[in-house]
C-alpha cells in the first residue's frame, strides 16, 4: 500500500495528462473509500525520510486541503469531518506531522509546518491538542538549525491561523520568548533569524499583554530595530514589516521609540535596497493612516472619549519627514505610467506625502512649496514631474484658504504644461494634478471659486485636447473632467458646463472609439466621465442627454452582433457591455427623475429592454449586474407599464436571485425586485410565487454572502406593500424566518463593531419587512391573520431597545414598525401595545430625538398608537 501511494502521488504530478488524470482519480477513490486510512498514509508519506521529496510535498498539500477551504460552507464541512475522525488516527497523523518538522528536507518540514497550523486552527478552539505548543517549544532548544527554523515557521503559521483568544497568556509568553530569541542578533543562522522575524509578524496580534509591559515591549522593540540593520536584506525587510504592523497595531505605544524609528527609516529610505526602502516609507504611511482615523474621530465628536489619543507623530516629524519624501519623488522609473503593477520609491513617497498632507493640513504647504518652485521649470523632466506630483499630492488636507491663491497661480501653468510639455510623464501627472484641484478645491462647498466664467472655456478646451494625447495622459484628462463636472453637481438649473455640453459629450464618445482606448483604462475612464457628465447635467441639457440614448444603444447592439470571438475578445466585449449598460443606467436614472424628460425617454424603453434581455444571454457577472441595475432604473421610470416586460425578464430575475457565487449580482437583483414591486404594485402578483420561493431559498442558504440577507428581508416588505393581503399565502414561510432572524439579531453581546454593524443591517431589513407587511394588510379584512405575530414583534422591538446598540436607521425603522402595527391592527393590539416597553420609553426617546427622520416616525407612531388605544 505504502509503495503504491508514493507512486500514485508521483503520477499525479506527471507531465503525461493520461497518467496524471488516472492518478488523481485513484486518489479521489482512495479518499472516498476510507478517509482515515487515506489521511494516515498521506501523513506517513510526508514523514517518510526515504520517500521522494515530490511525493512528500504533494502528500502534505493534499492533507492541508483536506483541512481547510476558502468557501465558508466547505470549510465548515471539512472541520466537522476532521473532528469526527477516530482519535487514534488523528493522534498518529499529528505525530507524523511533528516528526516531519525535524526533517532536513526543506520542502517536507515547511509543508508539515503549514499542515500543523491547519490542524491547530481546528483543534485548539476545541481544547484539543493541548500539548502542541509545549512540544513545539521543546524543539526550539534542539541543536540542528533546520529544526529550529521549521519550528519557528510553525509557530508563525499557528499565530496566523489561530485566534488569539484560544491560546492562554502563559503559552503566548513562551511563544514570544522563543520567537524574539530567534530574532536576536546572537542568532548566527540567518534562516532561523528570518523564520523568527516572520513568525513575530504573525505573533504581534497575540502580544497585547506583552506590549503593555514596558520591559517586554522595550525588549521586543530593541530586537526588531536591530533586525532592521541585519546584513541579510530579507531579514531587514521582514523586520520593517514587523515595524509597520506594530505602528498600526500598537500606535499608542510608539512614543518612546519614534525618534529611533525615524532614524532607522530615514537611513533605509535613502540607502537601502528598494524592497526595504518601500517598507520604511510604508511605516510612515501607516502612522498617517492611524492619525487620520483618530483625528477624524475627534472631528466627528469632541465629547467622545476616544480610546487612543493622537500623539501627532507626523506633525513632530514633519521638518525631517517631508524632505525625505520629496527626495524619493525624483526616483521615478521611465515608464511607470504604462505599467499597471508598478510600485516604486517615487510612487510610495508621493502617496505618503499625500497622507502626510491629510494628517497635518496647512503645515505641509510651506515645506513643499520651495521644492515645487525650484523644480517645476527645470529642463530635466524628472524634476518637473516630481514638482508637479508633490503639488498634486498636497491638495487634499490643507484648507482652501491656504491653497486657493497658490492654485490660482498654478492653474494657468498647469494648463500650459498639459498642452506643451514635451514629456508624457509630466503631462500625465499634470492632468492628474488638475483633477485633484477640481476634486478638492472646486464645488459648491468651496467659497472662492477656482473656476470662473473667465477660465472655464480654456480649461475645458485644454482637457478635451488632452484626450487626444497618449492613452495614459488622456485617461487622466478624463479623470480631471470627471471632477470638473462633479463640482457643478448641485449647481441648480443653470450650469456653466451647458455651453460645452455637446462638445464634451462628442469628445468623450470619440475617446471611447479610439483604437488604443483599451490601454491605460482609457475607455473605462471615458465612459465613467460621460456618466458623471450626465449625472451632473441640468434640465437645460436634458434633450442632449436624450440624444445619447440611441447612440449608446447602437453601441450595445453592435457588441451583441459580434460573432465568434476569442476568449480574450469575449472578455473585452463583456467589459464594454458592462460599461454601456452602466452608461444607460445612469442616463435612465437621470431622465427618469424629471417628468418631461421621462416622458420623452419612454419612447426608447422597449428597445432598451430588448437589448438588456439579450445582454443577459451573455452571462457575464459584471454585465448581468450592470444590466440589472439599469433595468431597475427603467422599472422606476416606467411605472405600471413595466408589466409588459415581465414575462421575458422573469427568468433572468430568477437567475440573478440564484447567483450565490457572484453575490453582487444577487444583491442587485434583490434591489431590482423592489423597484419592480413599486413600479407594478399588485400587477407583480403573478411572479411572486417564484420570487418568494427564490428569496426564501437564498435566506436558507449558507453559501450566499451574508450581506445579501438584510436586503432580502427588506424586499419581503416591498413585495408585501405591493401585493397587500395577497401576501397571506407567504406569511407561513416568511414569518417564521423573520422571527428566527429577529431572535438571532436581538442580542449582540460580545460582538465586535463589524458584527454590530451587520446585526443592525439585519435588524433594519427585518423591520422593513414587518413594516411592509403591516402596511400591505392595512384596511384588509385579513388583518387578523397578523395578530398572532404581534406579541413577538413587540418583544423584538423591546429587546433591541433594551440592547442599546441600535443605530439611527434601525431606530427610525423600529419605531415606524410600532406605528404600522398600531395602525393596521388598531384596537386589536391596543392592550398588547400598552404593555410593551416600546410604546413608552422607546417612543419617548425617539420623540425627543435630534434626528429628524426618527422624530418623524415617532410622531407617526404616537399618532397611530393614540388612535389604536382610543377606539
Amino acid at each position, binding site marked *: 500500500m505504502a509503495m503504491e501511494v508514493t507512486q500514485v502521488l508521483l503520477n499525479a504530478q506527471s507531465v503525461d495528462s493520461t497518467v496524471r488524470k488516472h492518478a488523481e482519480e485513484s486518489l479521489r477513490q482512495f479518499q472516498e473509500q476510507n478517509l482515515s486510512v487515506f489521511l494516515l498514509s498521506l501523513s506517513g508519506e510526508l514523514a517518510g525520510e526515504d520517500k521522494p521529496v515530490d511525493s512528500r510535498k504533494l502528500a502534505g498539500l493534499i492533507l492541508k486541503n483536506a483541512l481547510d477551504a476558502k468557501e465558508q460552507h466547505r470549510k465548515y464541512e471539512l472541520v466537522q469531518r476532521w473532528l469526527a475522525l477516530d482519535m487514534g488516527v488523528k493522534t498518529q497523523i499529528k505525530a507524523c506531522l511533528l516528526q516531519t518538522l525535524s526533517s532536513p528536507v526543506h520542502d517536507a518540514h515547511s509543508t508539515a509546518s503549514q499542515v500543523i497550523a491547519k490542524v491547530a486552527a481546528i483543534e485548539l478552539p476545541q481544547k484539543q491538542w493541548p500539548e502542541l505548543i509545549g512540544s513545539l517549544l521543546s524543539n526550539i532548544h534542539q541543536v540542528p538549525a533546520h529544526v529550529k527554523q521549521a519550528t519557528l515557521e510553525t509557530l508563525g503559521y499557528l499565530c496566523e491561523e489561530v485566534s488569539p483568544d484560544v491560546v492562554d497568556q502563559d503559552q503566548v509568553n513562551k511563544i514570544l520568548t522563543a520567537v524574539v530569541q530567534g530574532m536576536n542578533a546572537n542568532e548566527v543562522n540567518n534562516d532561523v533569524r528570518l523564520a523568527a522575524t*516572520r513568525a513575530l509578524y504573525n505573533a504581534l496580534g497575540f502580544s497585547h499583554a506583552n506590549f503593555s509591559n514596558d520591559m517586554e515591549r522595550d525588549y521586543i522593540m530593541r530586537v526588531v530595530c536591530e533586525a532592521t540593520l541585519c546584513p541579510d536584506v530579507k531579514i531587514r525587510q521582514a523586520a520593517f*514589516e514587523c515595524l509597520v504592523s506594530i505602528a498600526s497595531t500598537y500606535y499608542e505605544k510608539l512614543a518612546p521609540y519614534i525618534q529611533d524609528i525615524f532614524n532607522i527609516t530615514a537611513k533605509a529610505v535613502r540607502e537601502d535596497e528598494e524592497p526595504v526602502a518601500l517598507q520604511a516609507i510604508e511605516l510612515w504611511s501607516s502612522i498617517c493612516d492611524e492619525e487620520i482615523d483618530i483625528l477624524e474621530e475627534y472631528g466627528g465628536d469632541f465629547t467622545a472619549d476616544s480610546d487612543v489619543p493622537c500623539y501627532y507623530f507626523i506633525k513632530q516629524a514633519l521638518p525631517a519627514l517631508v524632505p525625505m519624501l520629496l527626495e524619493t519623488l525624483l526616483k521615478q522609473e521611465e515608464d511607470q505610467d504604462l505599467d499597471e503593477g508598478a510600485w516604486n520609491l517615487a510612487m510610495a513617497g508621493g502617496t505618503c506625502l499625500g497622507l502626510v498632507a491629510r494628517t497635518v493640513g496647512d503645515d505641509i504647504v510651506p515645506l513643499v512649496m520651495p521644492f515645487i518652485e525650484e523644480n517645476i521649470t527645470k529642463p530635466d523632466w524628472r524634476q518637473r514631474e516630481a514638482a508637479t506630483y508633490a503639488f498634486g499630492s498636497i491638495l487634499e488636507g490643507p484648507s482652501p484658504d491656504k491653497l486657493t491663491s497658490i492654485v490660482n497661480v498654478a492653474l494657468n501653468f498647469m494648463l500650459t504644461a498639459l498642452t506643451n510639455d514635451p514629456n508624457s510623464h509630466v503631462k500625465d501627472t499634470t492632468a492628474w494634478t488638475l483633477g485633484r484641484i477640481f476634486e478638492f478645491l472646486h464645488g459648491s462647498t468651496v467659497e472662492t471659486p477656482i473656476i470662473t466664467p473667465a477660465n472655464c472655456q480654456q480649461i475645458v478646451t485644454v482637457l478635451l485636447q488632452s484626450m487626444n494625447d497618449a492613452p495614459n495622459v488622456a485617461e487622466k484628462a478624463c479623470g480631471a473632467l470627471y471632477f470638473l463636472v462633479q463640482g457643478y453637481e448641485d449647481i441648480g438649473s443653470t450650469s456653466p458646463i451647458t455651453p460645452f455640453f455637446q462638445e464634451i459629450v462628442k469628445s468623450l464618445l470619440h475617446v471611447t472609439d479610439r483604437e488604443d482606448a483599451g490601454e491605460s483604462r482609457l475607455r473605462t475612464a471615458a465612459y465613467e466621465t460621460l456618466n458623471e457628465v450626465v449625472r451632473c447635467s441640468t434640465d437645460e441639457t436634458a434633450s442632449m442627454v436624450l440624444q445619447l440614448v440611441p447612440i449608446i444603444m447602437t453601441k450595445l447592439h453592435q457588441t451583441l452582433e459580434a460573432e465568434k470571438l476569442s476568449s480574450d475578445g469575449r472578455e473585452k466585449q463583456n467589459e464594454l457591455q458592462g460599461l454601456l449598460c452602466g452608461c444607460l443606467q445612469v442616463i435612465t*436614472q437621470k431622465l427618469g427623475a424629471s417628468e418631461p424628460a421621462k416622458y420623452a425617454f419612454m419612447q426608447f424603453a422597449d428597445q432598451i429592454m430588448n437589448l438588456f434581455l439579450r445582454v443577459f444571454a451573455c452571462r457575464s457577472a459584471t454585465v448581468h449586474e450592470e444590466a440589472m441595475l439599469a433595468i431597475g432604473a427603467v422599472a422606476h421610470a416606467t411605472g405600471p407599464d413595466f408589466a409588459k416586460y415581465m414575462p421575458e425578464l422573469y427568468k433572468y430575475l430568477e437567475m440573478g436571485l440564484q447567483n450565490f457565487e457572484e453575490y453582487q449580482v444577487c444583491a442587485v437583483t434583490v434591489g431590482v425586485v423592489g423597484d419592480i414591486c413599486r413600479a407594478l404594485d399588485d400587477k407583480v402578483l403573478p411572479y411572486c410565487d417564484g420570487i418568494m420561493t427564490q428569496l426564501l431559498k437564498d435566506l436558507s442558504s449558507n453559501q450566499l454572502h451574508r450581506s445579501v440577507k438584510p436586503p432580502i428581508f427588506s424586499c419581503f416588505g416591498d413585495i408585501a406593500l405591493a401585493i397587500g393581503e395577497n401576501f397571506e399565502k407567504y406569511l407561513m414561510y416568511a414569518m417564521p424566518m423573520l422571527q428566527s432572524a429577529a431572535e438571532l439579531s436581538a442580542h449582540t453581546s460580545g460582538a465586535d463593531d463589524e458584527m454590530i454593524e451587520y446585526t443592525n443591517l439585519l435588524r433594519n431589513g427585518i423591520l422593513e419587512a414587518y413594516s411592509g407587511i403591516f402596511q400591505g394588510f392595512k384596511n384588509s379584512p385579513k388583518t387578523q391573520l397578523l395578530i398572532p405575530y404581534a406579541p413577538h414583534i413587540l418583544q423584538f422591538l423591546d429587546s433591541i431597545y433594551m440592547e442599546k446598540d441600535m443605530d439611527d436607521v434601525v431606530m427610525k425603522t423600529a419605531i415606524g414598525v410600532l406605528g404600522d402595527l398600531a395602525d393596521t391592527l388598531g384596537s386589536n393590539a391596543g392592550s398588547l401595545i400598552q404593555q410593551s416597553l416600546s410604546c413608552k420609553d422607546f417612543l419617548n426617546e425617539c420623540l425627543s430625538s435630534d434626528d429628524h427622520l426618527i422624530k418623524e416616525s415617532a*410622531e407617526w407612531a404616537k399618532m397611530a398608537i*393614540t388612535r389604536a388605544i382610543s377606539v
Partner: protein
Amino acid sequence: MAPHDLRRPFKRPAISDQQRRRDLSLLRQKENRLDAQRRARCLASSVLSFQSEPKSPSQEQSHFELELELEIEPDAEQHQGPATTYDVRQASKLRGTDARRWFAKQLMLPEWMIDVPPNLNTDWYVFARPAGKRCFVVSSNGTTVSRLRNGILLHRFPSALPNGARINNVSRSGQSYCILDCIFHEPDQTYYVIDMVCWAGFSLYECTAEFRFFWLNSKLVEVGACDTPSTFHKYRFATVPVYNCDQEGLQTAYIGPVPYVKDGLLFYNKHAHYQTGNTPLALVWKDENCSEYVIDTDSKGQVPNQQQLVLELQDDGRLATSDDPSVIFGWLNEDFIQKTGLHAGNLLRFAVNDGGLSFVDGKLEKADLQYLGQSNRARAFADSYSKVMFQYIVRHSPLKIEHLFASIGPLGDGDIASHDVEMAA
C-alpha cells in the same frame, strides 16, 4: 506567511464609478422605499403628496421657498394644467388665478345647514365660529404663510409652529410642514385654529374629526403656538372650545362666552375625514343672536333688498353652483353671452327676483334670476347650493335654534327626516 502588499491606490480616485452606480441605485431604491412607506402611512395624501421625483436636498430647499407674495394678477393667467395635482411645493410657485384656484380647493367648506342632520347629538360636534377671515396657515422651511380662501396672501410671519420660523437647531427638512385651517380674528390679531390638516409632515386628511381635534388640542399647546407673540412668533394661535352637540353643548356654543366675536355655529361630523371642497359633513348655521352677518351684505356692507347669488357660467351657457356635481340654476342664451363678451368660467352675480325659487318635492324647479354683472374678481368660485338655499330660507322661513334643540331634545333621536337634496333644474 502573509505576503504584505505595499501598493496603495496610485493616481486613482478612491471610489470606482461602478461602486458609485451601485451606491446611487441603492440610494434611489432607499428613497423610493421611504416614499412608498410614507404613502402607505398616509404621511402624504393625494392632495399634498411629495411623490414627485427625488431631488437633491439643495434643490428641494430652494423649490420649497414659499414665494407666496402674490398680489392679485387676474390677467396673468398661467395655464399650468389642472390645479388639483400640485403639491404644496409646486403650488407655492403658482401665481394669479391658478394659485387662488389651488388654495381654494384645499379647504374643507362646510355646507350651510338647511336641514337638521340626523343623530346631531351623538355624531356631531358644535362650536362657535370666530368672525374673521377663513384661511390656510402653512408653516414650512422656516416661515409661516397664511392665505385666504381665494388664495390671496394674508400674512407671512415667523411662528412657533413646526418649521414656522428660522431658528437655529431646528431641523428644516422640507417634509416637515404644517397646514392649519384657521380663522384670522382681527380684533385680537389671533389665528383661531378650527381644524388641523397636516402636522409636522403628517397628513391628517385620513383622520376622523374626533382624532384631528384631539391632535390639534394637544399639539398646538405643546409647541407654544398659543403663547403670547414674540420675535419668532408674530401672531398668537388659539383653539376654539368644541362641544358634543347635545343640549348642553349646543347651549354653550350658542350663548356661552368666548374671547372672540361669534359668527354662527359650525357643526362637524365626528367620523368624517378632512374632505376638501364642499361637504355636508361639516355644516354652518347662524341666526341674529350668534352672528352679525346672517343675511349677506353687498360690497358696501348693506343688506340688499333682493338676495344676490354668484353662479359660474358654463360652456353651454348654463349657470352652475360651486357644488360637485353642480346645481344648475338656469342658463344664458348665446346672444346675451356674445353681446356681453362673457365666456365660460366667468362668475356672474344675479339677484333673486320676486318670482323667488320654486321647489317640487324638495328639488329646485325654477329660479327667477336677474343678471347684475360679473362678480368681484377676487372671488375664486360660485356660491354653493346650500348657501343660496340658506340665504333664501333666512329671508323667508329661517331654520331656528329651537329647531336644533328640538332635534336633539329629550326625545333625542332627532328624527327630522333629512331630505336628500338631489338637484336638477
